[in-house]
């Protein structure tokens, strides 16, 4: 599904990703953990083609993401993405948020897009908020809205970038539950997260990033119980 070889990413002089090799299979759930600034978000942006890369390659379903001929807008329809914060469109209702991209990108008719959008919103438990604007939703609801919006494009892979870290502790649960549901349904997922509980329970594998290097990757039991690298141990002890 995803095939990353020797990926290098620089922001000017700053070397942010230093040769990442990673494969994610269909149906797999991968959690990415690591301290702030280690390049986790950057990795997701690169997979999505939102950031250029300086060396190596990323292939999604045998499409080279950074090949000049690749139609990125088409590719991105396969890759749903949910960010940490503020990513619902504030000027559109929940329904319009979800229906917009299918309509203007996929060319669905207005009624078709709306119908599917309301299905997706039902799916994430927002069936009663179709006509609410984001500012009238709680943080957790906004995040579920963002998930529904990504799902409406029928992606084959979902990328989550700390989808819960801006939420009040009480609201984290509902978003994690939605993500669990997706995992159960067999969605391929890469989740950058600070929620060790989630990483442990839901993922097939967990990867630990440290200063632009993927220091360690493995099944959650292995990584959490018998971390190989010293950095991993130090990090895990800090986040408890």
């Amino acid at each position, binding site marked *: 599904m995803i095939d990353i070889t020797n990926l290098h990413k620089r922001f000017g002089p700053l070397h942010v990703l230093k040769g990442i090799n990673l494969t994610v299979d269909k149906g797999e759930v991968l959690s990415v953990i690591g301290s702030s600034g280690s390049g986790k978000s950057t990795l997701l*942006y690169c997979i*999505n083609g*939102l950031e250029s890369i300086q060396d190596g390659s990323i292939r999604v379903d045998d499409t080279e993401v950074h090949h000049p001929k690749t139609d990125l*807008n*088409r*590719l*991105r*329809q396969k*890759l*749903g*993405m949910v*960010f*940490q*914060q*503020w*990513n619902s*469109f*504030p*000027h559109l209702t929940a329904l319009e948020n979800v229906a*917009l*991209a299918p309509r*203007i*990108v*996929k060319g669905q008719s207005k009624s078709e897009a709306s119908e599917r959008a309301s299905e997706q919103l039902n799916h994430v438990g927002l069936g009663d908020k179709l006509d609410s604007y984001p*500012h009238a939703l709680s943080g957790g609801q906004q995040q579920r809205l*963002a998930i529904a*919006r*990504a799902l409406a*494009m029928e992606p084959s892979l979902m*990328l989550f970038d700390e989808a819960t870290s801006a939420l009040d502790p009480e609201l984290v649960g509902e978003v994690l539950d939605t993500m669990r549901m997706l995992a159960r349904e067999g969605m391929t997922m890469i989740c950058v997260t600070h929620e060790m509980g989630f990483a442990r329970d839901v993922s097939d594998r967990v990867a630990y990033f440290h200063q632009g290097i993927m220091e360690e990757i493995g099944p959650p039991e292995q990584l959490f119980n018998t971390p190989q690298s010293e950095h991993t141990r130090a990090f895990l002890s800090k986040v408890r």
Partner: protein
Amino acid sequence: MDYFSGLQLKDLGFLAEAAGRTLLISGVSIGIGSLVGLIFGWLLTVLGRTGRFLLNAVLDVFRSIPLLIQLVLFYNLFPIIGFSLGPFAAGTLVLTVYTVALVSNVTRSGLESVSPDLRRAARSLGLSYWQDMRHIVWPVGLRAVFPAWVGVALSVVKDSALVSVLGYVELLRASQTLITRTQEPLIILAIAGAFYFALSFPMARAASLYEKRWAQ
């Protein structure tokens, strides 16, 4: 022979007509100026360093010279370079350029206020650059700066009073004319002031209410 006469009812009509001209000249300037200003504001966000610097420098000139001087200068310049403009045309032109200078600033900050995350979210759904612009950046950014734009528009309405120095008989000039005839400055100024206030205050209020709602 009496060259002076008291204030009459029909003088109110005269003032109303002049108020209409105030609205006309500021309306035209705001309309055209805002359109051009939108484009320039967008250019400021996409141009390279030098382009942005140059455009900014030009627009900045119009923000750094008193409007009064701009009006007099341009009014006198056009005939010199070969085509004569009446007070209305010259006033509209100067006010329009002035509006462009202000609106482009407002637009730029509006577009820049759209967070990169929001744009990434849109792009990550597969929206193209222009779709992102059309459906996300413009609506969100412009809504955010709508109150600031109203502020600019109202200040153009108020500054249009300066076109009176070119002899264009807008509201303030008309009140001066009436003052000349009636020698009753207080009441006439009060009427003129009340008109500006009645136009400006509700709009400013509405904009700030809108801003509060939008800020939530």
